[in-house]
């Protein structure tokens, strides 16, 4: 069992957890992920590692409450335990010694971008970060990102902070301005990563993305995470999750991500019923 030492609400639906997991912390590298399960009857879901501290024996994860299991994780509090916390899984991000590197984080994708920035910074690589969200209240880890970036640019869809528009607008401006850029690493929603890939492709600018497909075991066993990269079928869990963006079949990845939408809806409805039942209380009179 893996104790939650610290919890921070980054947004109403985005929670950060510092989890005691010494073995995972000792091995974790930027770009890797863990598989988490919170109840005996629960699903296994992958979550990207947002930070780690081998000395303290802790691993940080950030969860956006979108599906059933992410909501169950999000509802946990400090001092509570995560039933299963396995990792670090996947290949570490291949990090260059030559900058400048542009890091693009969208939504809760800023979380896995953070340890990449941190390591690049310690390697002395120049880091330009672009982070974005729909609106300023949904922007996460801004201060943390500022502390590990040489330059931090912000975009919000509604213009409530920084550039009004998408992270890809900012990225395009940066490229067009003629600034030297060695490579781009983008993590965020699949559609954002696809947009980043399309933005950099005409410039033949090396771009890496981290795919976040459906997984079960996370160790190469099931193949749920199959994706097509450069015309070949890869398993994101062992061959990735980081791939050359210009080789990724994003349309397929988006489509595969929706495989269980109907079931997800059903499971969430069940959760809602349970929650309402809890609030309404029973009729036994014990609460009078």
């Amino acid at each position, binding site marked *: 069992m893996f104790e939650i030492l610290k919890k921070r609400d980054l947004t109403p639906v985005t929670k950060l957890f510092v989890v005691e997991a010494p073995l995972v912390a000792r*091995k974790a590298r930027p770009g890797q992920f863990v598989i988490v399960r919170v109840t005996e009857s629960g699903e296994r879901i992958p979550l990207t590692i947002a930070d780690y501290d081998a000395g303290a024996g802790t691993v940080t994860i950030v969860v956006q409450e979108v599906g059933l299991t992410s909501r169950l994780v999000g509802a946990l509090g400090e001092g509570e335990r995560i039933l299963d916390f*396995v990792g670090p899984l996947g290949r570490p991000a291949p990090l260059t010694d030559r900058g400048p590197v542009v890091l693009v984080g969208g939504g809760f994708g800023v979380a896995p971008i953070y340890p990449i920035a941190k390591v690049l910074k310690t390697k002395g690589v120049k880091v330009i970060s672009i982070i974005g969200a729909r609106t300023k209240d949904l922007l996460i880890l801004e201060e943390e990102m500022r502390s590990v970036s040489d330059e931090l640019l912000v975009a919000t869809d509604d213009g409530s902070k920084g550039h009004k528009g998408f992270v890809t607008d900012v990225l395009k401006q940066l490229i067009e301005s003629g600034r030297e850029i060695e490579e781009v690493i983008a993590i965020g929603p699949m559609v954002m990563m696809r947009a980043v890939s399309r933005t950099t492709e005409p410039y033949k600018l090396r771009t890496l993305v981290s795919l976040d497909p459906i997984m079960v075991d996370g*160790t190469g066993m099931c*193949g749920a995470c199959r994706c097509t990269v450069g015309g070949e079928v890869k398993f994101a869990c062992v061959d990735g999750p980081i791939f050359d963006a210009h080789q990724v079949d994003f349309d397929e990845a988006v*489509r595969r991500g929706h495989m269980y939408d109907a*079931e997800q809806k059903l*499971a969430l409805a069940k959760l809602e019923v349970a929650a309402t039942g809890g609030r309404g209380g029973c009729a036994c009179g014990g609460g009078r």
Partner: protein
Amino acid sequence: MSDEAKRKPAKRPRAEMPCQDPAERVRNFNEVALGYDEELAVAEAERCLSCKDSKCRDGCPVDVDISGFIAKIRDRDFRGAYEAIKGTNSLPAICGRVCPQETQCEAKCLLGRKGEPIAIGRLERFAADWAMSQGKDRPADIKPNGRRVAIVGSGPAGLTCAGDLAKKGYEVTIFEALHAPGGVLVYGIPEFRLPKRIVAEEIDNLRALGVNIQCDVVVGRTITVDELFDEGYDAVFLGTGAGLPMFMNIPGETLNGVYSANEFLTRTNLMKAYLFPEWDTPIKVGRRVAVVGAGNVAMDSVRCAKRLGAEEAIIVYRRSEAEMPARLEEVHHAKEEGVIFHTLTNPVRILGDEKGWVCGLECLRMELGEPDDSGRRRPIPVKGSEFVLEVDTVVMALGTTPNPLVSQTTPGLEVNRWGCLVTRDEDGLTTRDLVWAAGDAVTGAATVILAMGGGKKAAAAIDRVLRG
């Protein structure tokens, strides 16, 4: 019973295994074979000739004293029978259910020459189930010898190796990547063939021997083999299995609705998708399911599909029924349950609808030619015989290969061109000193009992070497 039969029990046919009715069982995941009761078991045991020089034991990879335990069942000494089996087999309730006895012990039975061999597997299961019904095993009196062995993987090979070493006084820790121990016994073999309660009880018996099991540790990622030695383990046993699924590399394999058998079975068995939404892991089954392949894993998949509600569950196999690698009993059970068999049929393409979901499986008809390297007649495509099977789900059950996570992170650990660990001797010593391996990780996908036999040999070798 007639007087004649009473005089010569050996001439009686073997006692039938009581089974759940096919029409009933396709609607549940409960065990299909219900097991002998005491009377059936004793009647079957009476058929045994108790040969002086019994051959059945030679057919057993873990050297169970078969005629000995059967004699004890005949004498109604069920505890004695159980203990006779446990002398060499730490997982009798599992072996009694999933061993291919017909090609091993039972194939050597003298009775089989003229009639039906003694039902060794069913009797083993009876003895093990009887003992379980009597409560937990007595904790064994074990003297610790102060040496530590790390076992990687909690499938049949690892569990057997762990049990044998624990009994000899070793401090044994099993590292398991998944959240529950058992390996293929829990993620692969379905509940209706091997109830998970049985696996859990056998594992509890090992824990009672002092075996420590650490789940959620992926050796090769969370910790490496070299780090295990750094932590003070004196030897390492690798029972990592063959967990990587194979695909056909035909167009359409990434469509929504295509599964590897590994994923299909893991969702169903380990994650209990058949209880969705009570349990959280979903599975897509659809109206018509095609399972490609005809081994035991394919039979397990197709029978799960049926139970998950598929109206039609179809086996698609490129050779004929005679070449099917699955146990006869599994094929027989599948047929009873209404599984459709398309033999001499080879998929060439999976078809998708406009939204990227599977809508068909394009196949070619095959005919059998000359025998190939495997000795089986080679299937040859019939020109122009393309046709489409309308299906919503395709499950690829083509076999598996060993997972490279351990070999890739252990310098000096060699694998062959199929990714199987290279062993230097019969006992499973790998190309690294003090590292042994057995089971599917060495042989490629094989049977539970062969893995157990390998785990047993390795345990004996580890003991010999560590005692010096």
